[in-house]
């Protein structure tokens, strides 16, 4: 059979699979819902603003209105001023909800009862220390049952007090010598963050490309496994195999349908990220498509091998899941790979999904050029060639044994 006939046949197989999918209404709706739910779920789990800036009310923290208590033991005027300034700052950032308490003992009870996450004490002698030119101390006690929350809240409390402290020093320096810049004395070195791309970065610029890669690769993989195993089980695969077309045409058709499905999911992810979570595409759309395509083809071979070896649909799906679930966690998709132990990082970097996500991220966030992502492209291409050259001969052999 000629090449053009085989090519047409593969298109027909793809169209048939897509039509079939479209007819399975419930599956189709679930398929569209999945990326939507995932994106919104992660949208609420993670903060949308990545750069901390207390002055603009932006805080890079997943926590809001954490209840803390404040106890003013010192009767002095400065103690009250400092406490008021702290409450104002805390309410403007919406991070903390500050409540007054008469004594540390009462507040401590509330921590144990779980109603407060921390207590700030302005101890006796606070005003006096400042007036007599000595450092004044503030005590902070945290609820230690949740160490992650405590450390975030503690660092936010210290940051707010540091701001108050530096405003005090600025006014003191002004009183000593009006001719010098008080902020220079108070804080000689300032850190300013300059992003590669203008504007604020957000967690979604990390998550969105990762999810896109995950959706196309995994959607295609499990879709392909289901599509082949289903036809094998219901007997229609025999009808295709008995037709005068090559194994390549059959696989190409199957893969094409699943790739289109995966791409639709990926674009839903991208659409939601752009519309609701402020993600912008800085790079080339064409390069993005290229990486998506290579990401799919690098996984197809693995999918075919799993599917042809598995005796029925459920085994095929479980086999794929075995591969899919760990990939989500170790391939730099949900959180940075640097958080993992070294050996897991190495395994993660052996997976093609890592390179698909990496490439997409660089294109979308950093406007990378072809040359800058050549390594990702090479790895994905190698993966595709190697796995497909094993999978395709195996395919007909396994089905015609």
């Amino acid at each position: 059979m000629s090449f053009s006939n085989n090519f047409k046949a593969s298109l027909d197989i793809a169209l048939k699979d897509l039509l079939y999918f479209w007819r399975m209404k419930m599956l189709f709706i679930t398929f569209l819902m999945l990326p939507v739910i995932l994106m919104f779920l992660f949208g609420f789990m993670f903060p949308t603003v990545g750069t901390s800036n207390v002055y603009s009310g932006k805080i890079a923290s997943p926590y809001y209105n954490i209840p803390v208590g404040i106890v003013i033991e010192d009767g002095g005027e400065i103690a009250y001023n400092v406490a008021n300034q702290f409450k104002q700052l805390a309410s403007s950032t919406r991070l903390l909800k500050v409540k007054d308490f008469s004594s540390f003992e009462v507040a401590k009870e509330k921590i144990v009862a779980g109603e407060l996450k921390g207590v700030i004490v302005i101890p006796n002698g606070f005003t006096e220390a400042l007036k007599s030119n000595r450092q004044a101390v503030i005590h902070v006690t945290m609820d230690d049952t949740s160490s992650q929350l405590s450390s975030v809240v503690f660092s936010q409390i210290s940051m707010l007090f540091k701001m108050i402290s530096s405003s005090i020093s600025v006014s003191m320096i002004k009183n000593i010598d009006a001719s010098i810049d008080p902020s220079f004395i108070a804080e000689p070195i300032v850190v300013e963050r300059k992003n590669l791309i203008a504007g604020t970065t957000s967690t979604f610029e990390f998550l969105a490309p990762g999810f896109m890669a995950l959706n196309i690769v995994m959607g295609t993989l499990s879709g392909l496994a289901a599509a082949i195993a289903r036809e094998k089980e219901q007997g229609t695969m025999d009808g295709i195999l008995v037709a005068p077309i090559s194994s390549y045409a059959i696989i190409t058709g199957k893969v094409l349908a699943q790739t289109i499905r995966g791409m639709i999911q990926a674009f839903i992810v991208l659409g939601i990220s752009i519309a609701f979570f402020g993600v912008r595409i800085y790079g080339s759309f064409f390069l993005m498509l290229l990486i998506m395509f290579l990401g799919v083809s690098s996984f197809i071979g693995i999918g075919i091998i799993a599917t042809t070896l598995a005796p029925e649909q459920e085994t095929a799906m479980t086999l794929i899941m075995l591969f899919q679930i760990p990939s989500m966690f170790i391939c730099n998709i949900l959180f940075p790979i640097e958080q993992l132990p070294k050996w897991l990082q190495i395994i993660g970097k052996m997976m093609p999904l890592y390179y698909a996500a990496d490439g997409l991220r660089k294109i979308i966030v950093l406007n990378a050029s072809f040359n800058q992502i050549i390594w990702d492209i090479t790895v994905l291409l190698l993966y595709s060639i190697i796995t497909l050259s094993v999978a395709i001969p195996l395919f007909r052999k396994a089905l015609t044994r």
Partner: protein
Amino acid sequence: MDPMIIAENLTKKFNGFTAVDHISFKVEKGEIFGFLGPNGAGKSTTIRMLCTLTKPTEGTAIVGGYDIIKQPEQVRKVIGLVAEKLILYPQLTAVENLKFFGKLYGLRGKQLEERIKELLDMVLLTRFKDFPVGGYSSGMRQRLNIVRGLIHDPEIIFLDEPTAMLDPQSVQFIRDLIKNLKKNGKTIVLTTHIMEEAELLSDKVGIIDHGKIIALDSPENLKRKYNCASLHEVFLELTGRTLRDSASNNMRIGVIRGF
């Protein structure tokens, strides 16, 4: 004229178990060959080998003038398969099903449309052509399943139990259809467990048991030879009256195929 099917020492082993054991037979052009045997005797495996769906362990066959091992694509062009399992997508309509399979044989456009119309008329399904096949009765499904195998007008047609589990009306309809195909010069390999059917339709029958062909002749000759009133009697005479321990065979094949 050369026979349409020549099987020579066709053999299939699954993990050491011999499903089909060096069988040889010929089917002439325009003949209906009744391929009979108890469950698990090797009928379906033989048909799968002749259709290039299973590779023989040993031996080969010439189907429509082409070698099943060396020229599988050529073989596929001249054969039509109506397998035991329905080869239809329940979510698609009759027309969509036929269109899809027609295209795999390179049929397109007007030619394909006319062929589909002709086939649907032939099995009286034109009225239901745009309904999903999943809603069809078993008789309707089987009628469609048969013409699906005929979409490219093949010279050789394999019918694996085409009348199993159907009502008498459907059975009669399908038998008439098979007779018509023969009238049009098609070569047919038919498997069935209904011996009356085989006797009624076949020019020649081959009885296979334990992977070997144990009888190969016309129904008339076989009845005379074994002095039986019907092919049914001949079959029982040859394959025995006790129930078969065919489960062991099926289980072995089942493990390999994964069903």
